[in-house]
């Protein structure tokens, strides 16, 4: 009897050893999460040093947020993300397909891989600080341009909507294209070389090969990249925050959702900030669900779905 029990007991060590993670997750992630949701239904902030609330006020915070400029900031966030993401995915696809192309035989591949990944290692805030200094009206970029004789008056990059948004986009692009390239390279390398060979024997050109073979076959990873980038984009904060000194200038056109959230946290307005977080949570949750469906679907070419459909039709 004893020996039998002992054998069964082996499994529990596994649980015991993963227990610390679950306990710390519960304390440091789950409880705050539950609290955030709970407080979003309360009026709870600080006025000076005095604490107001928590008073239960139902969904008033949610309604107030919808009445505020939240959707405008969501729009800002989306625009800033797009400016960074479009060039990022294009360049990453191009680089990835070049790097894995057996025929191109690029020398020093490893070196380039490291270099394009490097910007990702810099802290976003330090990166933004650097750009802020470089592109300030008396900064080095303006002095270079004027000493080259290209401009007469310094360009006020951060004073215009176009300038600020482009800079934020540029920074996000620089920081993330290396990461995306490496991910896509892995995806392309996962495609069986047989397919490429077969296509070449059939007389497939390089462009055709890219559009008809590479792209369709890396679709799941591409979708994954897209969704994770959207979720990352939703949480865009440090780059525009530092670049515009937390003001989202000019005229709040570079205020992102999280900067808006941060404005509420200045007065420790946990209620309003909580409600905003819940909105973001729901949107991210939906996006996660979509990613999950896409990545867990091993039916990349759609054959299973087709078979299912056929079966269904057959039943009718």
């Amino acid at each position, binding site marked *: 009897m004893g020996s039998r029990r002992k054998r069964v007991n082996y499994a529990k060590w596994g649980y015991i050893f993963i227990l610390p993670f679950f306990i710390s997750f519960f*304390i440091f992630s789950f409880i705050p999460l539950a609290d955030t949701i709970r407080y979003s239904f309360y009026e709870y902030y600080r006025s000076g040093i005095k604490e107001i609330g928590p008073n239960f006020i139902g969904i008033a915070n949610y309604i107030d947020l919808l009445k505020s400029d939240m959707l405008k900031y969501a729009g800002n966030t989306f625009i800033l993300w797009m400016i960074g993401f479009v060039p990022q995915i294009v360049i990453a696809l191009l680089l990835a397909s070049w790097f894995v192309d057996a025929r191109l035989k690029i020398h020093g591949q490893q070196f380039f891989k490291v270099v394009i990944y490097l910007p990702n290692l810099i802290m976003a805030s330090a990166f933004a600080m650097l750009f802020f200094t470089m592109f300030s009206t008396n900064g080095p970029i303006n002095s270079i341009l004027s000493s080259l004789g290209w401009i007469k008056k310094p360009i006020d990059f951060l004073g215009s909507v176009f300038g600020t948004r482009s800079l934020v986009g540029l920074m996000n692009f620089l920081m993330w294209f290396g990461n995306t390239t490496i991910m896509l390279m892995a995806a392309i390398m996962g495609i069986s070389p047989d397919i490429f060979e077969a296509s070449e024997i059939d007389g497939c050109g390089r462009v055709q090969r890219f559009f008809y073979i590479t792209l369709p076959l890396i679709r799941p990873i591409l979708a994954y990249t897209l969704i994770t980038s959207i979720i990352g984009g939703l949480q865009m904060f440090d780059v525009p925050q530092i670049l515009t000194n937390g003001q989202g200038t000019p005229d*709040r056109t570079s205020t992102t959702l999280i900067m808006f959230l941060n404005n509420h946290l200045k*007065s420790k307005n946990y209620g309003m900030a909580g409600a905003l977080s819940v909105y973001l949570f729901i949107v991210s949750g939906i996006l996660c669900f979509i990613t999950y469906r896409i990545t867990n679907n091993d039916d990349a070419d759609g054959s299973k779905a087709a078979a299912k459909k056929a079966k269904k039709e057959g039943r009718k």
Partner: protein
Amino acid sequence: MKKKLLSMALVSAMLVGALSGCGSDDAKKGGGSSGSGGGDTTAEEGKVINIYSWNDEFFKRVNAVYDQVDEVSKDGTVTKLKDGTEIHWIINPNQDGVYQDKLDAALLNQADASDDDKVDIFLAETDYVFKYTDAEADVALPLTDIGINPETDLADQYDFTKVIASDANGVQRASTWQCCPGLLVYRRDIAKDVFGTDDPVKVGEKVKDWDTMKKTAEELKEKGYLALASYADTFRLYGNSISAPWVTQGETVIKVDQKIMDWVADSKEWKDAGYFDDTVKGQWNDDWNKAMGSKSKVFSFFFPAWGIDFTLKPNWDGDDGMWAVTNPPQEYNWGGSYVLACRGTDNPQHVKDIIMAVTGSKDNLLQISKDYLDYTNTVSGMKEAAADSKTYASEFLGGQNTFEYFAPVAEKIQMAPLSAYDQGCVELIQNAFSDYFQGKVDFDKAKANFETAIKERYPDITEVQWPE
């Protein structure tokens, strides 16, 4: 079984490791030392005085003038007094509200903290001192409660510093060693080039009020110079002489003062006329700092004593003696660090002594003026300093005695009572109208942006009223 115990021990060790991260951190912040002489909590004074501040300003001044100081630890975190009591310095930077966050957390925890962890003294700047002197919040002790009678003990202080240090009922709850009247600081070489003289009296004549200064700005512009760096430079002159507080006690309505609207109108006019440096947007940024360099075309800045020392001097890359001070077009006060005694302190006697030593003793204050160039909070002492050009000559300003110019300004300063919303109002109104000055938004949009921003910052604000 042994293995089981061992692994249980390992697991718990991991857990403790994971959890202790936050705990030990808090203990450090509280500056808690339960070590030597800890348990002694009789009716006597506590053994540890905790002082919260955002830089080493107060630290240096206490160590310099408080006669009970025995020695300062090498890392600058502990000052030992002669009777064995220790002052623990808890310093958090002001940037991004870090200091106030940490201080607020400590104050909210004050009632539960052990005696040695209680905050005894903390500092606050003019912009947010009211948050703490507020009678309703009641975190700072009225000075009378610790045995200081402001009317007799602090009779020599400037009246406006007492206004700043008082709650809405006029009860003084803070005291300062520093008084921050501001002056106009100008470049001598530019003055010579444009006016033919760099004499402070003659230049002062040219900037004696806003209308005259505008004409002077035009003169400077014709010669290719700029009167001031940016619209933010003039803000304190208008913003600190408002007639009523931003928010009346007990109300939740922000009343924008006419003075602020004057600042908006004048700044727009000056900006469009080209009297400001177009590349400088606001203060405390790289462009602003560069405007103080020798290559800049900017003629003048508005600064109190600390500004000349901490801001202008490090940014100036030319020789000493190229700058001079003169009277500003309008008297103003800018900044000031206030010392507050915290409710719940276990060292009332020491707290009183320290506050008196640093803010209420004329000799000590004159000493501070000599050593640190502060314009200190003693009316009679500053009069002496103004007359004593030998001791107080500033090398950086070409041998000028700045006290001579500060003293008349300090006497004329009128401060409106403060409100707990000042810091946000001052910051956000400048941000909102910055876009307007640069032509990014129209006037009404700038107003709307201010309303949005202020309601975000202070959720209890219900309305913003603009002057007619």
